């Protein structure tokens, strides 16, 4: 098991280098100097010397590969440089926004699993019944529904027309004056719409996926064999069937790791949530390239970590993988 892990980690190194290269060149191969944004585009008043100074400060006068090397060694130490927009360390800005995004996406993921998995299981168990067919239709519609449109519609309905929920921001204006439980309630009200929209967007997909997995499993020979042993249908479905059908959920969890930290640009923009997605968007608008590069590298890195965790998860749960790794 340990050597399996080591081998996987080793194979990641070229990927990591590739990611860093990609992130670096995405920014540096674009027209226009990165200092343009910081100094004001084409502002003739900015003196040549000031520009030179800035370029020297950010190593922009050196050849590309030197810049890359310097940047790469710095990010290995988690030093992502300083933001061009406000001079603060990138890592600080990043860390500020992570908890928010984590909360929103984490809650959303929880809802998706909590409702999506049972829905899929029911659809499979009652295959062909009304629920199954309805959920197929709903899923199809949900897939086609642009999430930002759903957000607008729900904002309109719950935020404006009914006035039940706030439509933007994380907290109300007088948040500091709230008591503890009031603060929690306020946060909850603000998070309700973003989390709900985010969850709704993926719910149908997950439930349909689980339904298909479950159906596949229920056709397997060992399910027939289990029935032949007089195991109650309940046990056959929910113990034998479900355990096998839920294996791929590990993959899903692994795939959602980058989203948990990277956040969603669209939702955070719509709902004005100060999370990592919004940070990225603002940085992109202002060409704050240290932040952009930092986020590109981090999210890509997290994707790899996510898939590694999924592999580990499988090895833990599936004895075929666990023992195959050991027997080597």
């Amino acid at each position, binding site marked *: 098991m340990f050597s399996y892990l080591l081998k996987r980690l080793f194979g990641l190194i070229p990927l990591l280098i590739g990611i860093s290269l990609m992130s670096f060149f995405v920014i540096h191969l674009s027209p226009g100097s990165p200092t343009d944004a910081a100094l004001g585009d084409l502002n003739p008043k900015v003196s040549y010397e000031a520009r030179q100074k800035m370029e020297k400060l950010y190593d922009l006068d050196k050849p590309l590969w030197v810049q890359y090397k310097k940047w790469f060694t710095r990010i290995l130490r988690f030093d992502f440089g300083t933001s061009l927009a406000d001079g603060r360390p990138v890592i600080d800005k990043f860390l500020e926004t992570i908890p928010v995004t984590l909360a929103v996406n984490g809650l959303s993921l929880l809802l998706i699993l909590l409702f999506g998995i049972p829905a899929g299981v029911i659809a499979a168990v009652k295959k062909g019944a009304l629920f199954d067919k309805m959920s197929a239709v709903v899923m199809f519609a949900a897939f086609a529904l642009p999430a930002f449109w759903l957000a607008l519609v729900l904002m309109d309905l719950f935020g404006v027309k009914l006035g039940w929920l706030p439509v933007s921001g994380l907290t109300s204006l007088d948040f500091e004056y709230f008591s503890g439980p009031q603060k929690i309630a306020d946060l909850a009200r603000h998070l309700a719409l973003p989390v709900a929209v985010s969850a709704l967007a993926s719910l149908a997909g997950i439930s349909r996926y689980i339904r298909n997995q479950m159906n596949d499993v229920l056709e*397997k*020979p*060992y399910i*027939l*064999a*289990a*029935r*032949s*042993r*007089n*195991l*109650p249908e309940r*046990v056959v479905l929910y*113990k*034998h069937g479900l*355990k*096998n059908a839920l*294996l791929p959920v590990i993959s899903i969890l692994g795939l959602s790791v980058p989203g948990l930290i990277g956040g969603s640009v669209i939702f955070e923009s719509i709902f004005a949530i100060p999370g990592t997605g919004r940070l990225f968007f603002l940085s992109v608008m202002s060409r704050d390239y240290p932040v952009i590069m930092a986020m590109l590298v981090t999210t890509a890195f997290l994707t790899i970590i996510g898939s590694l965790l999924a592999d580990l998860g499988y090895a833990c*749960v*599936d*004895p*075929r993988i666990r*023992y195959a790794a050991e027997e080597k």
Partner: protein
Amino acid sequence: MTRLFEVRDLNVMLPTRHGPLAVSRDISFSLEEKQILGVAGESGCGKTMTMLALTGLLPPGSRVSWKKLELAGRSCDPSCRTDISKMRDKGISYIFQEPGTHLNPLFSIGEQLTETILCNNRGLRAKTARQEAVRILENVGLRPAGDFLRRYPHQLSGGMNQRAMIGLALAADPKLLIADEPTTALDLLTQRSIIDLVLSLVRTRGLSVIWVSHDISLMESFADTLAVMYAGRIVESGPAKDMTRHARHPYTRALIHCLPERLKEKRFQPIPGHVPALNAETRGCAFYPRCPFGMPACAQAEPLTIETENSRKIKCFFPQNT
């Protein structure tokens, strides 16, 4: 010898895209205690479907009808809506052809065994169930039992998995064991050991067995009675040795003549033609197109089953004399 099991005029219908399909017709046979019935036939003759029908394990949408279905004195009423599975519950176990795929890969042998024991014996304590599991594993030859309890199906060989499956079948404490081609996927040596195991279980536990296989010569060696199926019907049945030595139905004869052993004797003869598709509607005898002894009358109506001395049954208008 008391009669353990009897089925009369069983018909199985499967739903297909083009309408219902009759896969077994008028299946009738009986089994005594401690008796082994071998069911032989080519692929596609309906043997597995018939067996699945007897245990209520057919795919959804299937329909079964029968005139009589009785296990250990308890009759299954064809007009009542309860599934046959209730009858299975009380005493039929099934073992399958490929043991590896019929065991859940995510649970250990021990877990699956104790689960079956607990489900079939309500109110049993977990500890007792585990002891029983150990006992069963030893009975089927998986020693040391403690080891095998912890193993997973993918870690065992085909033979060991089949033993585990037999163990699982025994955990339900059956009176009748249906073995659907249990050794077809195994090598010859393992085959023999599994057959020996089943024979010993018949002796020690008083099990009756229905053994399904396409290998008639294999079953001849250990079965008490044989039934040969063709196109969903039983075309001949009777005591095993008698049938193979003095086969009377043209199909059974042709089968015997196809046996590889006959190659040496230069009496090997493959059967021309091929098995009819199950949805081919025939008016007369299903074997008529391939029958070397067929008469025009055979094409007109389905042959009746003739019963002769020593409980031989032949479904033919013109059974051959030896």
